[in-house]
């Protein structure tokens, strides 16, 4: 009789017992990786919120779209002046909203070659101070400082971030609609509007559920 056979069986049983300790019995215990849907780029994504790749994809699209707007292309009397209005955040993600408009502005300024001009309204206090100093003669001026040269807006550019969150057994899904508008401040007409959508979903590790 081979006396080692029972020993082998016992050893296998213990090893199996030991190995089964690694099994949790929970479906998708490690979670499901986040998937970026309908976006230009897909890289490592840490969450279902608004991330840099979304910012880049959305603002690139908006900048291209603005330049193809007939009101911009055919604007009479030189390049139109645009003032940025704060973006409204209606999502569940807190963020620096101005970063969207800042990137659209930098894209247009660097690639549109003067087709659009932006007015630095957020620097108004410093600009007014400078003009006052010139008018008082405290600093030099190349032009007559008493002539009103601050320009008014031909268009307002603004946007809204809207979100829809779904949480099910399969995980968390966040859909975000980025919409931007060009508004004529004289008539309140919305001259241009475009949007981009991003949907992301993922599932937390079972250790946190």
């Amino acid at each position, binding site marked *: 009789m081979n006396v080692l056979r*029972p020993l082998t069986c*016992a050893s296998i049983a213990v090893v199996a*017992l030991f190995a089964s*300790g690694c099994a949790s019995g929970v479906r998708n215990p*490690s979670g499901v990786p986040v998937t970026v849907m309908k976006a230009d780029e897909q890289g490592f994504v840490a969450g279902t919120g608004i991330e840099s790749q979304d910012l880049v994809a959305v603002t690139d699209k908006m900048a291209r779209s603005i330049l193809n707007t007939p009101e911009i292309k055919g604007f009479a009397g030189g390049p139109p002046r645009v003032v940025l209005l704060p973006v409204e955040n209606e999502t569940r993600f*807190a963020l620096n*909203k101005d970063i969207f408009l800042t990137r659209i502005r930098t894209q247009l300024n660097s690639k549109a070659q003067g087709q659009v001009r932006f007015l630095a309204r957020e620097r108004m206090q410093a600009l007014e101070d400078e003009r006052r100093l010139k008018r008082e003669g405290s600093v030099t001026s190349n032009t007559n400082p008493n002539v009103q040269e601050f320009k008014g807006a031909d268009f307002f550019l603004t946007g809204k971030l809207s979100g829809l969150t779904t949480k099910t057994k399969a995980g*968390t899904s966040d859909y975000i609609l980025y919409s931007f508008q060009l508004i004529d401040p004289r008539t309140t007409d919305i001259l241009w509007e475009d949007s981009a959508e991003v949907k992301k979903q993922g599932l937390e590790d079972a*250790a946190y*559920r």
Partner: protein
Amino acid sequence: MPPRAPFFVPRLGCLLSLAFALAGCTSLSPEKQAERNRQLDDYRAGLKALRSGDLVSARQRLDSAVLTLGGLSVGDKTAKEARNYFKEESRKNFRGEPYERAMAFYYRGLLYWMDGEPDNARACFRSAAVQDMAPEIGITEADWTLLDYLDGLATVKLRGDGKDQLKRARKSARLNPPPDYDGQANVLVFLECGTGPTKYSAGEYGEQLRFRPGSAPGSLVQFVVNGQTNKFGPYDDLTYQATTRGGRLMDHILAGKAVFKTGADSFGDAAVVSGAILAIGGQGSRGAADEIGFGLLAAGLISKAVSAATTPAADTRTWDNLPNFISFAALRLAPGPHTAQIQFQTQTGQPVTTRAVTFTVAPDRDTVLFVSDRNL
């Protein structure tokens, strides 16, 4: 031929090695554990800073905390460790239970509103509500009164319609129904009192996560300003939020660990006893019964070692400076300096703590006050 050592000697060596190896699985250096408690430290320090008026630190710590919560835990090696039968749950990076995660977003939202960003505040309240949902255990919507109420108030302030949020807030109100929104209210008072729930483990191996209820002797707040007396009751109870969820998915994993531990231990007992009987019965004759007996004995000891190394204990790390009740009030006050007398009272109106708070109402945006019975 040299005499052979008893066949079980090398196996006993293996057994001891295995036991040491398994024992090694359960320990973590203090530095590594501290790293994994970073989120907990951020929670505690952020709230402490908020209560002491150090808003810069509060923002930094809470930003760090909510950023971590915003990212999914997929690929977190420490979470994988926590699910391992031979490693404790407390080895995972701390994120907290849903009520703790919700409170991190709540405090960050409060700070955003303080900074004149009600939309980002609303975003935080919405994220806080998402933390409370657990579809896997049948919780498909949040039941925090204040989160929905503040979401709606921020929406009203941003010229939106907060009716749905108000309806949800009233539906989940257990303690006090929230009032209609006053879009003209310019002073927002975030109130909190008491000591929040704490965690402990129960069950044979500490595998069941349990909560000790928090307490708040003074849960009514009397707010006197400009000769007007306002009384506010709590809207949300953190003990209720902690104890009424019905379990976690991780509880099933821990229960599985406990069953495994018991099974391995029982098997070990049976194998050791039967192996010893067979081995003694063989009287060292090196016969088949002798060999089988020593084999069973070895297997039993290994199984006992495996059982001893299994760690089903629940993670009891707690955000321990949370309040037990949170409340809110929106008031209309003229711009300029004001002094308010704030008194936390018992349910029967007996004063517990009374202090004076001086603040300045801004002319062009909401003035947000954070009043805790611990920051007075």
